[in-house]
């Protein structure tokens, strides 16, 4: 037998109590890791963006359109290798409440700018040939059971009416930051159906050197400063960050809920450990009478609290990490693609486990170590 066996034996004294306490820590830490991951994933998404890509949007807000005529002028800016454009379509499929991202993009330039989007070459050519064709992420295809060649009708909100598309291609993404749940079709089709009234929502710039981004941004914004649609040009990363900034309060709320859950469990665990320690007061006296030192007796109590806290944390954070790494939940992915537990969440969880150990185990440990042998032996249990 070892002292570790003694700790284990004590934990197994009330199996259900230990199991339930550990499970409550696991659930709390699972929730904490999951809720915190909203914030960390948003942070990582705001870091997403290639060094050679910039976004040009309306200076006031992205909801205001730009003008197609800007393309030629943007292409002439020194350091700009290519220009692409897109617009938010905002259509719904079958049910207005069911949402997925759908955009009008300029196919050839968009695909050239985003090599991380992988489209099989044959399908790509099919899509580029069909003006009413669409390229759809594989996750969205799977969700609706769509197949290549199928006609899909989207109901426009910004651009009213029924819009029929033929799925010509599917894409996969090399990065979790670009989701596989988007529906993209040709800007030319949007333009045609709206009698050439469509205007780009934003432009993408392919720049030769990322270091030139500040100069290019200043140049572009200077070009359109006095126009009807002044621009705000930024790196793709800054553009992402401005999107993610919209989640600001949600992120704080999620973190607050996560910490509140952990705090509640801290009280529950502390209570369980105190109960467990009180029930064994006489045994503490016996161990001390045998010759166990005050410190050793205290450490045994602390080790019990630590075992519960660490096991619960490992189970909870481990489950959250594995789950969100391997399973993509549509409801989360469509808003926060690449949702997963960040490495720093694991470190923070480890720190919480340590705190949980100290807070729930320190009082029983100190009580056990400070109690006189005679007083402990006199305790009636």
């Amino acid at each position, binding site marked *: *037998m*070892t*002292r570790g*066996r*003694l700790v284990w*034996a*004590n934990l*197994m*004294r009330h199996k259900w109590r230990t199991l339930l306490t550990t499970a409550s820590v696991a659930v709390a830490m699972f929730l904490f890791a999951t809720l915190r991951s909203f914030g960390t994933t948003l942070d990582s998404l705001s870091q997403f963006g290639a060094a050679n890509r910039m976004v040009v949007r309306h200076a006031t807000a992205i909801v205001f359109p730009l003008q197609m005529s800007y393309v030629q002028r943007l292409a002439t800016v020194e350091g700009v290798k290519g220009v692409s454009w897109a617009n938010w379509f905002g259509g719904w499929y079958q049910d207005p409440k069911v949402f997925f991202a759908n955009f009008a993009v300029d196919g050839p330039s968009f695909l050239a700018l985003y090599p991380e989007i992988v489209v099989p070459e044959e399908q790509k050519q099919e899509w580029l040939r069909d003006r009413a064709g669409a390229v759809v992420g594989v996750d969205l295809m799977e969700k609706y059971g769509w197949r290549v060649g199928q006609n899909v009708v989207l109901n426009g909100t910004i651009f009213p009416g029924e819009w029929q598309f033929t799925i010509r291609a599917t894409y996969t993404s090399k990065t979790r930051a670009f989701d596989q749940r988007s529906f993209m079709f040709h800007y030319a089709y949007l333009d045609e159906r709206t009698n050439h009234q469509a205007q780009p929502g934003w432009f993408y710039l392919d720049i030769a050197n990322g270091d030139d981004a500040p100069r290019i941004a200043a140049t572009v914004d200077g070009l359109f400063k006095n126009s009807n649609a002044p621009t705000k040009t930024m790196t793709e990363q800054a553009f992402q960050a401005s999107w993610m900034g919209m989640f600001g309060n949600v992120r704080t709320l999620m973190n607050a809920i996560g910490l509140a859950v952990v705090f509640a469990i801290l009280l529950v665990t502390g209570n369980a450990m105190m109960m467990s320690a009180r029930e064994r007061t*006489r*045994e503490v*006296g*016996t*161990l*001390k*009478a*045998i*010759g*166990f*030192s*005050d*410190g050793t007796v205290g450490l045994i109590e602390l080790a019990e609290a630590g075992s519960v806290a660490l096991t619960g944390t490992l189970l909870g954070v481990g489950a959250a990490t594995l789950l969100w790494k391997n399973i993509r939940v549509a409801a989360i992915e469509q808003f926060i693609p690449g949702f997963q537990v960040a490495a720093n969440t694991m470190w923070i969880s480890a720190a919480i486990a340590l705190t949980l150990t100290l807070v729930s185990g320190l009082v029983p440990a100190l009580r056990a170590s400070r109690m*006189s*042998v*005679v007083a402990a*032996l006199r305790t009636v249990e």
Partner: protein
Amino acid sequence: MALVEIRDVHKSFQRDTQRIEVFTGLTLDIDDGSFTAVMGPSGSGKSTLLNLIAGLDKPTSGTVQVAGAVVSAMAPGELARWRSRHVGFVFQSFNLLPVLTAYQNVELPLLLTRLTKKERDERVRIALGVVGLEDRMHHYPRQLSGGQEQRTAIARAIVADPTLTMLDEPTGQLDARSSQEVLALLQRLNTEFKKTIIIVTHDAHAAERATTTLHLEKGDLVEKGVVAR
């Protein structure tokens, strides 16, 4: 030769506002290799005396010396180490850890030594053999009778080969037959294995087995009897 030397020991307790004097200048010796029964009415200070000798409690003043070590002057950490080497303690209500088997309970004091697992195993088996519980070593306390539990507790007390084995009312919760078994065992430990045993008891049969009897009354040693064997 005196193994335990108690000199001018005073011990008092504070109960609420009342100060209770248990010993007021107690002086006595207990010989090495003796089987001493401490007797006396309730409240006479028997258990307190045992606790002082075992280093579980400290005198208000005076000295308690065991085998040359001044127990009453030791710091808590030093006292714990000393207890692990020199004292085997048996309680009236056995005080076995219910989550451990008889074997594991007996092994507990050896966790404080530098013995190897094999050496510990040998010692535990010998101790359980001495008390006649080889066939119950993997039973939990709840699976043992009262007498078997107390014999396990005695095995735990002797397994580390302590200088002193002390028992506080060891037969208090046992039936007559179990009591006789336990007392016979203690006598055997004293005569055959030369263990120094101090037992606190109300039981006259227990006292009959002892080589020395100390009679306490209101904290004073009123009688010391030595039986020649």
